[in-house]
Structures are given as C-alpha cells and as structure tokens.
C-alpha cells in the first residue's frame, strides 16, 4: 500500500476529487496547510501599501491506495486536474504504508481501501 500526499491549489480541489472518483478512488482526506516553495509570495493590502505573505494557502490531499491500483495512473490524474503550469502547482509524494485497518469493522489490509 502507498500513501499519496499531494499539495494542490485550493481552487483545484473539486476537479481533482472528480478525477479521482472517475478512477474509482473515494477514500481521501484534506488538510488546510500553508506552504512555501518556488511560488513567490502573495501581495496583500495593509492600511498603507502592500505586504508580502510568504506562506501560501494550499490544500494537502492524502490518499492511501492499495497496491492493486495503478499508482501512475492516479498520479497522472491528479496532475492533469491540478496543473496550471505556474509556480505553486504543488508536489506529490509517495510514502510506504505498512498496514491499514478499518475502525468500523476491524478489517485489515488492502481491500478496505
């Protein structure tokens, strides 16, 4: 099993979600995060002039997927939906998962995903 962590623009959430649904993935969780990377900060207005916010609001989507799923397909789906081509589109990281358990039924393993 793998955990896919992806940092995306908040406005892309619904598109990515739809894309994943079409691939049959429906278990996922969303975090509101602030990120830093290649994207330049955002200018906001204060009472006089502007100030630059370096931390930019992003969403992190986290999905644990079974090894039966074609992970590259999932990655491509996310990319196709979340891409704008401008800095700040975010990154995807893949981490290993050793076990997963469904609280409701105590079932374990890939099939609960």
């Amino acid at each position: 099993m793998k955990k896919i962590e992806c940092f995306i623009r908040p406005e892309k959430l619904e598109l990515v979600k739809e894309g994943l649904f079409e691939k049959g993935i429906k278990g996922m969780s969303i975090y509101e995060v602030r990120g830093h990377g290649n994207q330049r900060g955002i200018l906001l207005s204060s009472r006089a002039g502007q100030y630059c916010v370096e931390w930019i609001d992003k969403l992190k989507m986290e999905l644990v997927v079974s090894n039966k799923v074609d992970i590259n397909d999932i990655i491509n789906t996310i990319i196709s939906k979340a891409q704008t081509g401008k800095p700040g589109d975010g990154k995807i990281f893949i981490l290993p998962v050793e076990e997963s358990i469904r609280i409701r039924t105590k079932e374990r393993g890939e099939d609960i995903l």
Partner: protein
Amino acid sequence: MSAADITFILICTGLVFIMTPGLAFFYGGLLRKKNIINMMAMCFVSIALVSIIWFFISYSLAFAPDIGGGFIGGFDFIGLFGVGRDSYGVYSSDMPHLLYMVFQLMFAIITVAIIASPFSERVNFSAFIIFISIWLIFVYSPIAHWVWGDGGWLGMLGALDFAGGTVVHINVGFAALAIAMVIGPRKGYQKEVMEPSNIPYVLLGMGLLWLGWFGFNGGSALGANDIAVLALFNTHIGACAGGIVWMVIEYNNTKKYSTLGIASGALAGLVAVTPAAGFVEPIWALIIGGVSGAICLFVLTLRTRSKIDETLDAISIHGTGGIWGAIATGLFASVGSSGLLLGNLVQLLIQIIGVLATIGYSFGVTYAIAWIMNQTIGFRVPIEIEYAGLDMSQHGEKA
C-alpha cells in the same frame, strides 16, 4: 428643560458609548490573532475604569469652575457632588447636569480607548491600567477643561472645536506617538509579517464607529436643532469623501480596492470633520473629509516606514486628521462663526494656537508619564510572551 433635547442627548450618549465596543473590533481585527482579546480587553476596561475615575475626580477637574487660570477645573464636582437631575446653566439649561456629565464621559472613554493603539501586542495589562488612570487625570482632564470647561483658556480665547478635534483627536494622536516612542517597537517590527487577522471585525467596528459618530458630532450641538442636523450630515459626507479618496489613491498604487483603505479613509474623514461639524457648510465638510483621506494616508505611509511602531496609527489618523480639521475649521467656518474664508484671519490663528498648545501639552506630559512608568514599573512583557501573544499570558483566553 426640554424633553426633546433630553431624548436626543440620551440617545447620543448611547451612540457614543457603542463606539468603544466598535473600536475594540476595529482595532482587534487589525492585530494578529494571538493579541485580539488583549486589545478588546483594553477597550472594555477603558469603559469601566474611565467611568469610575470620571465619577470621582476627572469630571470635576475638567468641568468644575476654573481654579488655575484657565488650565484646570476645581474640586466642586468631586464624586459628582452637586451634579444632579437639575440643569446646570453653564453648560446647558435644557437638560439635567447629570446628562451633560455622562455625555462627556463617553467622550473620555473613547479617547482613552484609542490610546490603546501604541500599546498593541507588547504591553503588560497592569501597566496599561495604571497608565490610563494617570493619563485621564493629568492629560485628558486638563485639555478638556481648556476647550470645554467653564473658564478654560482655549474656549475663552474663542477656539472652535465643535466635537473634540483637539481634545479627543489631536490629544490622543500625539499621546500615542509619545507612548510609542517610549516603549519601542514590537519584536520583529518591519521584519516579520504582521498581518491584520480579521477584516470583517474591522468593518463591524467601522460600522459602529460611524454610527456612533452621528451621536458624537450630532450630540455636540447639545440639542435637537438645525445645527445637530448639519453636524450629522457633515459627519457622514466627510466620512464618505475620506473613504473614497483613500481608496482611489491606494488603487492607483496597488491596483487593489483595499477594504481597510475604505475604512481607514472614512475614519480619517470622520476625525477631520469633528471640530468643524457644526460650523461649516456641507460642501466644505466633503472637502475636509476628502483632503483628510489623502493627508492621513500620506502620514501613515511615512509612519510605517519609520522606526516608530505606533501600531494602529492614532497619530497618523487621529493626530493628523485632527490637526487638519482644526485648521480647516479656521478656514471654512461660516455657520455661527467665521473663518478665513469670511476674512477672519484671527480665527485661523486661534485655531493654530489651540493645535500647538494641545500638541505640546499632550506630547510632553504623556512622554513624561510614559517615560517614568517605563523606568519604574516597565511596560513590556518578556520577549517569549510577546512572541506567544498576550491573550494567553495576560488574560488566559484565546480568540
């Protein structure tokens, strides 16, 4: 006594009262989340504390018959002795003396609350409480006496200040500047981002301040008459002009319509129109307000580039707008008085004297009080607490 005037001033008292909770939101929303409660606490404690000191001593110092060559009132009204349900002709024969007193109290409260500006995000709450108690007695009360008190020297000289341009705004602006200079900037000032945490709160505050200002300026006519009407409309149109001007200038620089800009400009307009409200025709109020938006933004920009962390800009808005308003009154006064425009140069000079005297006294005495307190009790919280925010450490509360 007139039931209509009593009604009017009673309601205006309520309107001026609500300005302070309004200010709590206006100021609170401009700070970082970890200090929002602290700011609101400063505003609310001002309400309670000022009222009690006013009751026992400050009203008397400001409004009892003069005992010091126009400089300070006497002790006749200590503990509100003799301030009762009868009218007191010196101030108004249309309403109980008690009503005049409580209306004036609300002005003192909001003034003291505005002074929270330079204390933002860095000061021990006990020190704040001690400071404002002293300041109310030694700074606000005398200046109020000069302008409005029975025998006050500025009033006798003929200075025009319809609703408190000098007493409230110039005074509080320069006091705030002095305090900021004494206690120094916040840690990280001009290095870290210090973002306004809640703009809807700022706008809620602005709405309540604006409404309250109708009572502040309208009520200063001390009666439900045509001057009250004039003052109310001038107040409103000055605020509108200030808001638009500030917004447009900012838009030219940043291509954004800053909502804080609209609010700040409206505030600048309200401040500047305050001394003039019942003395000028509406077109001048509009101009005074609009010009104030431009000047205050300019000063605010300078201020934010300087080393002085007068955090919420009482100096740039109340101080600057107040000076401009006092002078503009000397220029454009024509209702029940006459300014330079009607050929009365003397009035302008008197206005300038009023401005300078207020600045000098307010800045000087406030600086002295703050300096002594800073050397003795000390204002600043330890640096870890400043970084962690004052809400938890001073109040045990989270916004």
